[in-house]
């Protein structure tokens, strides 16, 4: 391959400040604009997990799914909140590059800013959806335990996996739209392959090793343990999840770095 060089004075501090300034502006734009012409406004953030919870509760009565002794509503909702965040964040990342085409063609900033902004705005949705969760925990008198201290770590982990997947989807989806079209179906499939509607304990033993390769298993189980059962996450599962996140990042980020240079050409 022939050589091509582009040199310009850069200084890390200025670049970092620009990145943060742009990130902040993008997140502010998303949050301000998203619900400006909607009737329900921020309630949309709650509706999605809430409706899943209702339909799961119905399915449960049909299929007789166990919830390991906790009220099923909170059992499934505590898993739905992080899951909804993950699914929406990845989907939005896939769209973020395309919907910011104008910006991409104009400024030479690190292209990660668009997926990161998407994940951050979705995080705000998760906070809103958590309000109901807190309400449920009070209603069902879930005891407050030291296990809750694990919560920040779990949020970071789910944030990390969402951004990792999001980077990959954004990198490929910008060139091949199929990836973006496949997202709703893929996320549905992934949700059913994660212990959200049912407990991990009901997964047949011989399938369990494969099942647990899904990095979302450890994260979702972790959230449920910490929030509902008052126990710390299972260390084995958590390590598997952590490993999964690292692998996803090792693949997705370099791909994104390479592909993102040419985003302006493809849009």
């Amino acid at each position: 391959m022939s050589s091509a060089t582009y040199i310009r004075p850069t200084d890390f501090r200025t670049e970092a400040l620009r990145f943060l300034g742009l990130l902040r502006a993008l997140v502010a734009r998303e949050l301000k604009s998203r619900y400006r012409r909607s009737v329900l406004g921020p309630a949309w953030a709650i509706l999605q997990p809430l409706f899943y919870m209702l339909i799961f509760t119905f399915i449960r009565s049909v299929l007789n799914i166990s919830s390991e002794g906790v009220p099923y509503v909170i059992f499934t909702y505590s898993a739905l909140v992080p899951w909804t965040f993950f699914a929406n964040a990845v989907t939005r990342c896939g769209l973020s590059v395309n919907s910011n085409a104008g910006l991409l063609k104009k400024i030479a900033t690190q292209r990660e800013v668009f997926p990161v902004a998407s994940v951050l705005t979705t995080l705000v949705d998760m906070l809103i959806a958590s309000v109901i969760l807190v309400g449920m925990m009070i209603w069902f008198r879930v005891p407050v335990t030291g296990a809750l201290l694990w919560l920040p770590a779990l949020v970071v982990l789910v944030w990390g996996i969402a951004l990792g997947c999001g980077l990959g989807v954004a990198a490929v989806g910008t060139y091949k739209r199929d990836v973006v079209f496949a997202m709703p179906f893929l996320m549905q499939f992934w949700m059913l392959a994660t212990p959200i509607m049912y407990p991990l304990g009901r997964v047949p033993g011989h399938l369990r090793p494969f099942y647990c390769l899904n990095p979302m298993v450890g994260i979702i189980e972790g959230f449920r343990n910490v929030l509902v059962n008052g126990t710390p996450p299972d260390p084995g599962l958590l390590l598997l999840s952590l490993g999964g996140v690292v692998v996803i990042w090792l693949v997705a980020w370099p791909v994104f770095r390479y592909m993102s240079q040419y985003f302006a050409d493809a849009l």
Partner: protein
Amino acid sequence: MSDDVVIRVEGLSKRYGLPLAAALRRGWRRLAGRPADDGPWALRDVNLEVRRGETLGIIGRNGAGKSTLLKVLAGVTPPTRGRVELRGRIFPMIELNAGVHPELTGRENARLLAAVMGLRRRETEAKLPDIEEFCELGEWFDKPVRMYSSGMLARLGFGVAINVDSEIILVDEVFAVGDLQFQNKCLARLKESWEAGKTILFVSHSLDALQYLTRRGIVLEHGCLLEDGSPMDMLNRYEHLVFRNVRRDSSRKRARREISTGEVTVKQARVFDRNGETRSELDRCEPFGIEVEIEVARALARPLITLAIVNTAGVNCTWSLSEEDGFMPPSFSGAETVRLWFEEGVPLANGFYEVNFALRSAANYETLTRSSGLVGFQMVGPGRARGVVVPRHRWEHEGRA
């Protein structure tokens, strides 16, 4: 790199798309035994050096690579080959309204644009009154941008952009929208920046703006740098280029655009001189005529004929309506020939012209046929091809001692 040079471009070539994908495609085509085809080069071996404080005009026809050059300089898209070296902060004034959200107000969008263009939050807040004043949007500044007209939107983008402090400014045809007064204001602001020692690269199709703002110019064509010299050289070369291409087009069979009811067919059309000879080149102020032969399928009462001469920019230079001139034949039937004679010629500027023709019936004003590009001719004369008309004129001068 000498101290003075702020932009150095060496052997720059650019082809759009992922190099990896292109390599894969090339390999696949080779396997399939087909010749490799990687798509066109947007830039080919461009060499350029710009010094601090220079204003460089960039001109070229559509697709010549002007915007690509700016994008590569701005670092938005990487070069495929060659070397680009910059000194100083670069600010691309391209796609000024990129990122604007229609539901947000002008003020909120101004903050967003400022962040996009690299202003810090504190700087933005300090400059917001300036921006508001420059945009001249009044109460609209606090209304959602979706209610704005395109001109208002352009003002918003430019108002923010003009307040960004940078050493090198890339301007890409941003004055196309906005009214004349605002355009002049923008030009004046750019000129101020230049006087303050900024380096400006300016892409425009407005020859006047280029002449006003630049001290040096380059011409791009098919991605190659054709000319690098004074603004006058640039404009001459560009005009020559456009002119030559128009001439080449005209020598081919012209695509006649026609809307017709089918009852009237235009058989032939030509431009002729006082000897009745068909001409494709006319001297300025030479008498000439336009002749159109038509075939009318059914008798047409009170025909109305329009003949217009249109220049390459699509401007109607002359427009003649038979009825207005008192030419009112009672009816047309069968083969008819219509002539329009310009006794004193038409003092048109040098260039290529086309004739548009329309035939209507005064009885019901139904349009029977309308065709543009019926016939073409070229006007030649001394001097350059600026303006629309070149009437007989002379200069005078009076000095005060």
